[in-house]
């Protein structure tokens, strides 16, 4: 059984245009399915505004869905309350993109990290400090920052504090919403290594949200490519990088700068037929999603049915793709 299973998840936001006028709907997440197994890393990739972060918030039950469900260990998380909800909060944690915004500026590091310990009564009061120091050491920080405030720390240190806060409750799943993109490149590598170490040590599953294909290639087991609120391709990492099926995945890979190494050369030639056609234009507004395949206005390989019929996500060679080419 999958640890986390997301099925037909939808989230529409209403944009009010005034009294008596029918509100416009932003279809941020428009029917997303995926599953995450124990001790695995599932990456969700896509351009800004494709609904990745909304999926993260839904999976954490920070916002209610419009429809669909998220099953955690087989139970729908939107049905939880009381004790079950508290247990769920202990099992699934989140790391945000911006470590400046995700720490309370008026709380010291000690306060921030010890709070979940107090709420879930994980350790005795007199052992709080020891436990916090232990967690800080685990993420590569010293006890010297215990009584510092977030504004006194660097971006990398803050992100480590955020990671320590998620570890407090010994979670089974960590949702990492672009945890690297606000950091310097040198720091990115350190944080990525830290996440990998933690995964090895605690067997935590990750829902890793990113737009950085290099990181995803290196880190994840399976990948879902999102476009305008839908998953357009869903495959094992090697398969996806080996040969992208969906044209969107193709242009996405070809627009990422690839440094030829022994690791990357084996897939580089296969995507060259997209290379001359870098992705054109902007992502259409999720208020006004194009008819047919949402990608067709930008697609280099569109043909007859693309602007009329919405493609379904179908299984092709043990992977899933939603494109009329297959």
């Amino acid at each position, binding site marked *: 059984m999958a640890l986390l299973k997301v099925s037909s998840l939808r989230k529409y936001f209403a944009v009010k245009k005034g009294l008596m006028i029918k509100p416009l709907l932003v279809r941020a997440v428009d029917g997303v399915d995926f599953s995450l197994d124990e001790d695995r890393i599932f990456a969700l990739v896509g351009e800004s505004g494709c609904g990745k972060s909304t999926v993260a*918030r839904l999976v*954490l039950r*920070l916002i209610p869905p419009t429809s669909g469900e998220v099953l955690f260990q087989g139970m729908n998380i939107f049905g939880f309350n009381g004790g079950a*909800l*508290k247990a769920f*909060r*202990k099992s*699934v*944690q*989140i790391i*945000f*993109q*911006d470590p400046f*915004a*995700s*720490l*309370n*500026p*008026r*709380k010291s590091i000690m306060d921030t990290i010890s*709070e*979940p310990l107090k*709420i*879930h009564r994980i350790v005795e009061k007199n052992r709080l400090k020891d436990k916090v120091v232990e967690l800080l050491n685990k993420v590569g920080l010293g006890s010297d920052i215990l009584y510092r*405030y977030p*504004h*006194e720390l660097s971006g990398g240190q803050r992100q480590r504090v*955020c990671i320590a*806060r998620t570890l*407090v*409750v010994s979670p089974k799943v960590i949702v990492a919403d672009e945890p690297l993109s606000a950091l310097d490149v040198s720091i990115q590598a350190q944080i990525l290594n830290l996440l990998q170490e933690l995964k090895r040590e605690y067997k935590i599953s990750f829902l890793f949200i990113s737009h950085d294909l290099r990181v995803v290639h290196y880190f994840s087991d399976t990948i879902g490519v999102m476009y305008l609120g839908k998953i357009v391709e869903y495959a094992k990492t090697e398969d996806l990088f080996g040969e992208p099926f969906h044209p969107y995945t193709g242009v996405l890979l070809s627009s990422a700068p690839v440094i030829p190494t022994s690791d990357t050369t084996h897939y580089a030639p296969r995507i060259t037929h997209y290379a001359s056609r870098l992705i054109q234009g902007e992502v259409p507004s999720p208020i006004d999603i194009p008819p047919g395949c949402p990608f067709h206005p930008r697609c280099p390989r569109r043909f007859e049915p693309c602007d009329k019929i919405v493609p379904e996500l179908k299984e092709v060679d043990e992977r899933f793709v939603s494109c009329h080419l297959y």
Partner: protein
Amino acid sequence: MRLLSVVGKRFSRNRLSVIGAVTVLLLLIISILAPFIAPYDPTATDVRHTLSPPSKTHPLGTDELGRDLLSRIIYGSRVSLKVGFVAVGIAIMTGVIIGSISGFYGGVIDAVLMRFVDMMLAFPTFFLILAVISILEQNIFTIMVVIGLTNWMDVARLVRAEFLSLKEKDFVSAARAVGVSDVRLIFRHILPNALSPVFVAATFGVAGAILIESGLSFLGLGVQPPEPSWGNILTAGKDNIEVAWWLSLYPGLAILVTVLSYNLVGEGLRDALDPRLWEAERH
């Protein structure tokens, strides 16, 4: 904390605000130490020296019953400051609670509470206070409560606006994700970050409350003689303005200086706590 020292530095750059702050502090000391500073008992009458002009024995003169004006003004400051602080305290408590709930929960709760705020704002406050005071018992406690309960709306709106933006912040989501309860989220996570505009509003609020109290006492609906308050001294001054100008001038000056000082402090605080200027400071 470093934040406090930065705010202090920014505040002290505004000279007028510093003057205001010093005056406010001085007024506080005077009202606390009133029994030791005042040269006479503020209610002791002296029929031989009624309406005597300022002199060496009575620096600000005496009133129609021969009471020392300086002593009465010093004791009057106690009333003003007490009303100012307690009324603002009540206003802030009410405003913070209503504003927090409104901003945090949003939706129907927000709509209902904000329409209630609009309704309260639609009343001409001073006349509402007059009406309520004339029905209830006229003592300082009633005045404080009534002023407090008619002046919380601005605070509620400010706090609501802060909550609306703060509740979307990642640190709030992160706290929610670790299982922090709503009450704790509101009071321990969001509220401490929403207090800057409340401090500013409170400072202006003290000035406003002092003015209202003076007005009420002047009309005879506030603090009742013989207990001195700046407002009811002015009433006596009005009856004798042709023969005893000092009875109108000095309590009037006291009100002016006090209100002006609080407003100056409020303005200084508003600039010092402005987060946009704050950002500029850091870089």
